[in-house]
Every structure is written in structure tokens, then in C-alpha cells.
């Protein structure tokens, strides 16, 4: 096939047309002409594009929801783990604070030697208030040793096995300790009760007892060191015709929350029974 022959005049016409177009474009007349022609095209493309974007969003969103659900589950698991860690750390912190308080107390009284022990149980009989510790005679615990916390007197060791010890609490009904008040030096005896309340009794009528007085061990009887805090006087009962006055005492130690205690190992209770005269002798 023979290619069409291009004449010189045709080339000239083309060049003239191109030059005319360029001139029109540079002068700004062409854009107005093209604007009228391209406007509908641009509008059409915008419509198609917006519909495409909507459809694309709709299709891809469903897969994103599944991804979000999975991500949400993973985050929930992570949150649960973190909450568990927070609870564990708070528990550790609470224990650490407890140990620091006991340590501070032990350092403040360097004359005493202590054995720290955990409370691992309570006497099953509800009539008596005794607790069981996780240290026994193999750790140096002996019968009669005083047991304290940083807040005050807890009780005394009542029975010991190789690896455990039973402690008679201050609020047990069969407990009694000689005490005196801090400010007025009123002497008496603190006893426990089945309800766990402490009573300071045997205080002679001439002594002054006031609510708020601190009650400390007096050391009389030799069962406990002196000046161990027991509690605070709450209410005083005084009757004119009675020999003694009494008072209810708010214990310094919360016996329901006992976890860690200190046993004073270098205090030996004094056995005074042989010194008490027997009847008829």
C-alpha cells in the first residue's frame, strides 16, 4: 500500500492552525472554549470518583470492623493483665509498707531482738482468741514470749511446736495483763472478752482515768516488758460504792487484720509462782 503523499501546503496549514491555537491559548480565549467542553466531563469524573470512594469505604470497612474487634479483644486482654499486675503491685506495696513499718519500729527499739512471723491461722474455737504463727521453736520461739506489731501489744506465745506457735491474743477472754495509763499512771489490769472488747479493771477509785489516756503495760508480774502500748481509754465506769473503777479500752491493734507480727525473743517472762505464798503454808 502506497503511503498518502503530504503536500507542503498542508504542512503550512497545520503550522498555522497550531500557531493559532497557541496564540488563542496564551491570550486566554482557549480556556473559555475548553471550559465549556470539559465542565461536564469533570463533573462526571467527580461523581464517579465519589461513588467509587464510597463503595471502596463500604467494602474495606467490613474488614476493618473485624480487625477492630480483634484489636479490641487484644486490648481488653492487655487491660485485664495490666489490672492484675496493678492489683499484685498494690498488694506488694501494702506488704512492703507493713514490713517497713515493722522495721522502723524494730529500729526504734534496738535493745530488743525480734523474730518476724506470719499469722497463718486462727484457733477454730470461737470462745478463745488465739492465732497461729509460722515460726516455732526451731526459729527460737519460746513459750511466754511477747508478741507485738508496730502499733502495740498483740499477745504472748502460748504453745510452740518445731515450726509453728500459737499466740494468745490480748482480747482473748482468758488474757490479763498489768497496765498503767501514760499520763496519770493509774494502774490496773486489762482483760479480754468473748466479744473482743478490752476492759481495764482493778483501778483504785482515787486514781484519775480519762478518755483518751494511753494504756501501756506496766511490767508488773514479769510477763511483759513495760511501756508496750495496748490501747486508749474510751469510757470510764465509776461507781461510788465500788472498790475499783473500770474503763473500756480501744485496742491499738486491729486483731482482724493481723498479718505479720514481731516476737520479742530476748525477753524472758519471770516465773513468780514460787514467790506467791501458798494457802496454809
Amino acid at each position, binding site marked *: 500500500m502506497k503511503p498518502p503523499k503530504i503536500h507542503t501546503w498542508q504542512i503550512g496549514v497545520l503550522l498555522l492552525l497550531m500557531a493559532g491555537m497557541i496564540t488563542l491559548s496564551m491570550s486566554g480565549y482557549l480556556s473559555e472554549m475548553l471550559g465549556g467542553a470539559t465542565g461536564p466531563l469533570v463533573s462526571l469524573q467527580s461523581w464517579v470518583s465519589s461513588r467509587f470512594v464510597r463503595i471502596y469505604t463500604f467494602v474495606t470497612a467490613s474488614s476493618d470492623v473485624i480487625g477492630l474487634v480483634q484489636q479490641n479483644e487484644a486490648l481488653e486482654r492487655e487491660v485485664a493483665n495490666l489490672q492484675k499486675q496493678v492489683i499484685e503491685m498494690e498488694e506488694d506495696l501494702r506488704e512492703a509498707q507493713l514490713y517497713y513499718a515493722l522495721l522502723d519500729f524494730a529500729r526504734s527499739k534496738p535493745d530488743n531482738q525480734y523474730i518476724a512471723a506470719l499469722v*497463718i*491461722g*486462727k*484457733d*477454730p*474455737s*470461737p*470462745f*478463745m482468741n*488465739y492465732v*497461729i504463727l509460722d515460726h516455732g521453736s526451731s526459729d527460737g520461739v519460746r513459750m511466754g514470749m511477747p508478741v507485738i506489731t508496730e502499733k502495740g501489744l498483740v499477745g504472748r506465745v*502460748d*504453745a510452740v511446736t518445731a515450726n509453728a506457735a*500459737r499466740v*494468745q491474743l490480748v482480747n482473748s*477472754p*482468758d488474757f490479763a495483763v498489768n497496765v498503767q495509763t501514760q499520763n496519770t499512771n493509774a494502774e490496773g489490769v486489762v*482483760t479480754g*472478752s*468473748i*466479744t*473482743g472488747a478490752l476492759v481495764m479493771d482493778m483501778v483504785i477509785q482515787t486514781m484519775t482515768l480519762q478518755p483518751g489516756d494511753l494504756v501501756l503495760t506496766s511490767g508488773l508480774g514479769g510477763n511483759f516488758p513495760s511501756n508496750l502500748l495496748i490501747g486508749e481509754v474510751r469510757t470510764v465506769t465509776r461507781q461510788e460504792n465500788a472498790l475499783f473503777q473500770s474503763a473500756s479500752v480501744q485496742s491499738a491493734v486491729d486483731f*482482724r487484720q493481723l498479718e505479720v507480727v514481731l516476737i520479742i525473743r530476748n525477753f524472758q517472762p519471770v516465773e513468780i509462782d514460787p514467790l506467791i505464798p501458798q494457802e496454809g503454808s
Partner: protein
Amino acid sequence: MSVIIGLAYLSVGMMLQTAILSRIPLINGTVDLILIVLIAWALQDGPEEWEVWVWTLVGAVLLGFVSKAPWPLYVISYAIIILLLRQVQKKMWKASVLLLFLGIALATLFQQSLFYGFYRFVYTVPLPLNESFLYIIVPSMVLNLLFAFPVYLVIKDTAEWLHPQEDV
């Protein structure tokens, strides 16, 4: 086999009682898990007489070991309770749940009264009767009754596992 299972149950029961349940009092009363286990076991049809008594002895000695009260007191109180319960059970065609609740209520009353008397008159601890009854004995009875049925179901399943009954 039942002796080993009994030892395990009673040991776990004692640990639960001393470590947890004794620290959750109702007023001042506490649950006696060992007593409930022993009564539930004694009310089962399967166990033989000696098995019931071995469990009773083990439970009493375990509790007596950790308690301030002397272990013979636990042995005597549990033995009397189980003896009476077995006598009643023999006279009935089939032990009912009613007998369980009645047994636990009366056993708690008897045992706590025995302990009260012991502390009051042998140890000469000043325990007011009125307060002891209201704050310790009655709440302990309520707690024991609350725990009775769940423990009974566990012991019943154990007894049926250890002594499978033939269907008539």
C-alpha cells in the same frame, strides 16, 4: 481408700477452717467445717461403721492439735454426736436432709455448750452465759447450717464414689 480420702478431706477442711473460715465470723461465731463433714459422712448409707469412727477420730485429733481446747474434748464431743446420730439413722429407713440440718443444729448447740462449760468451769475463764449464747453459740449454729448442704453434697458424691450402690 476411704481413710486416705477422709484424711485428705479433713486436713483440707482444717486448713480452710483455721486459715480462712475462722477469720470470717458471724458476730463472734465461726463455722465448724470438720463437724459438718463428720455429720454428713455419718449420714451416708455406704460407709461402714469403722470408717465413720476413723473419720471422727482423725477430725477430732486434727482440730485438737491446733486449738487451745484439749484434743480429748474434741474426741469426746464428736464421738457423742456421731454415736447419737448413728443411732437415730439406724432407726430411719433413709436419712433425709432434714436429719442433716437437725443434727447439725443440735450438735452445734451441744458441742459449743460443752466447750463453754469446759472453759467456764475447768479453765475458770469469765464467760458470761448470755453473751456466749447470743454472740457465739447461735451465730455458729447459723453458719454451720449455711454450710451444711454444700458440704453434704460433696460428701454424698464422695460416699457414692467410694461405695457404689446397686440399683434395685
